[in-house]
């Protein structure tokens, strides 16, 4: 366990070194990615400011939800982007075997070999928006609320990554797993806004099936003392379950790969 942690930090140090080699390019990339977040936030600003609220949530409250989701989304790409490329980047060119020939968990190697700098841009912007919203909202902070916030960011990220994992396993059968992963990923846009504006079916989908709601809506509800907030504590459990399912599915896919070859 400690060994894996050390390796993880080592890989990170390597990636950072590569990024620092071309600081200009790295900074431009970060800046551009931050720019891509602005339109969405601007849209919220333009529209919500003119109306009393969205489903009972005022401007800053909506911003909080949007910001929280963006943080989890960005972090999931920072840590787990490589999962999207199992098919096109590893199995198709035949370099997946390379992962199996090392005395280390192949999933670990895969996830750790690449971290997305542009994801950092998203996460940063999300953090800024979240911070701005929290400041404007005058939350009554308590240790529990801080804990809930931190747990939610962690669970949210984990949920996105679990979705990437489950989608990526399709690569063992159809190689190009990107469409499948994209399918599961795209429903996260529901969680950008308060779930109370959607019909019950969507609410259930984004809470229990593709549980992005735990990255944004439930923690925001909890911090604001809204009714749905009690569900926030289920977040880590849901995330852990999804990760567990994802890992089992991954093992299943690996077994298939080992018996049929590339």
């Amino acid at each position, binding site marked *: 366990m400690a*060994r894996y942690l*050390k*390796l993880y930090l*080592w*890989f990170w140090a*390597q990636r950072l*070194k*590569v990024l620092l080699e071309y600081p200009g390019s790295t900074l431009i990339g970060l800046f551009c990615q931050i720019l891509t977040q602005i339109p969405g936030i601007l849209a919220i600003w333009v529209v919500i400011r003119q109306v009393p609220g969205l489903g009972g949530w005022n401007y800053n409250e909506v911003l909080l939800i949007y910001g929280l989701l963006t943080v989890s989304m960005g972090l999931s790409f920072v840590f787990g982007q490589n999962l999207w490329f199992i098919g096109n980047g590893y199995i198709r*060119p*035949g*370099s997946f*075997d*390379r992962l*199996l*020939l*090392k*005395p*280390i968990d192949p999933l670990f190697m895969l996830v750790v*070999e690449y971290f997305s700098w542009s994801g950092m841009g998203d996460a940063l912007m999300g953090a800024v928006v979240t911070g701005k919203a929290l400041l404007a909202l005058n939350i009554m902070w308590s240790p529990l609320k801080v804990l809930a916030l931190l747990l939610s960011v962690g669970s949210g990220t984990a949920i996105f990554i679990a979705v990437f994992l489950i989608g990526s396993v399709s690569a063992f059968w159809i190689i190009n797993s990107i469409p499948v992963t994209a399918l599961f990923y795209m429903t996260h846009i529901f969680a950008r806004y308060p779930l109370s504006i959607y019909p019950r079916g969507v609410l259930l989908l984004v809470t229990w099936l593709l549980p992005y709601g735990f990255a944004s809506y439930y923690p925001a509800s909890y911090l604001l003392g809204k009714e749905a907030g009690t569900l926030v504590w289920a977040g880590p459990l849901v995330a852990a379950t999804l990760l567990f399912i994802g890992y089992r599915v991954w093992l299943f896919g690996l077994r298939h790969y*080992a*018996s*049929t*070859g590339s």
Partner: protein
Amino acid sequence: MPIIQVENISKVFRISQKDPGLGGAIKALFRPRYQDKVAVDGINFTVEPGEVVGYIGVNGAGKSTTIKMLTGILVPSGGQIRVLGRDPHRQRVANARDIGVVFGQRSQLWWDLALIESLNLIAKIYDVEPARYKQLLDQFTETLELKELLSVPIRNMSLGQKMRAELVATLIHEPKIVYLDEPTIGLDLIVKERIREFIKQQNRESGTTVILTTHDLGDIEELCPRVMIIDAGKLIYDGPLGTIKDRFGKFREITFDTAGSLDPFEPPTGTQVVTQEPRKLVLRFDRTVTTASQLASTVMSRVEVADFSLAEPDLSSIVKQIYGGALQKEVSQ
């Protein structure tokens, strides 16, 4: 005590059959048809520690499938494999610690990291003891002249440099067995020599067992006292290299484009008619009995020749001969 034991292994792939076009795609969805492709068919062999074994066969013969099973990537459909007493698939991690693999074209090093960083990483992954790591690193970079390349990332290296780097990366954790798949492909002669020398040295000094799959007969001649030949999933030869060279390496084929048609051609002694067609005559001759020029002049004295070409013995022709020979051997025994 053999380091590798392969008992009657086979590998069967199920390939789905699909008719072309839209109708075919839909049919395949509802009533999938499969065809079994036998890649490996009942292979047996053992390898003792410290051996250098050449494993050759034409493309599609089952070479890479066997290697994949030996390295634990692929699960056999039948039979048993024991590498260092373990099942390489079930005990993948433990097996991985003791082996090194070089896939000719695909690198195990990280594309944009400097070589030294890649090697450090590998040392960490394989838990190489730091003092030993330093020692081996100095030794290898000295032998393979990689000192200036340590700070260069793989993407900026030439093919020859890449291969030398690969070898260091593969051997730095002192594996007991090394599988080399086309290690000298695309390299010029000098680099090839250097690599072959390095492999020989490793085997000599550390007793590393080497399994070498290659199409380059030069590799085989330099490195492998023992050769296994696989054809259509079966092992058709397993024995000393010398025997092959003596028995089959001496034949050449010469193809004549004849101007007119021939009566059935009576080959001179030591030669054999392979093909006779209206405008083509292919003869196989024993190099130790006659020479190409002698044969050509004999043929040209008997028939009008427009052009002729001489073929070097290639792997497939040797394999064909051996296959034919092996069959005869079985029949006579």
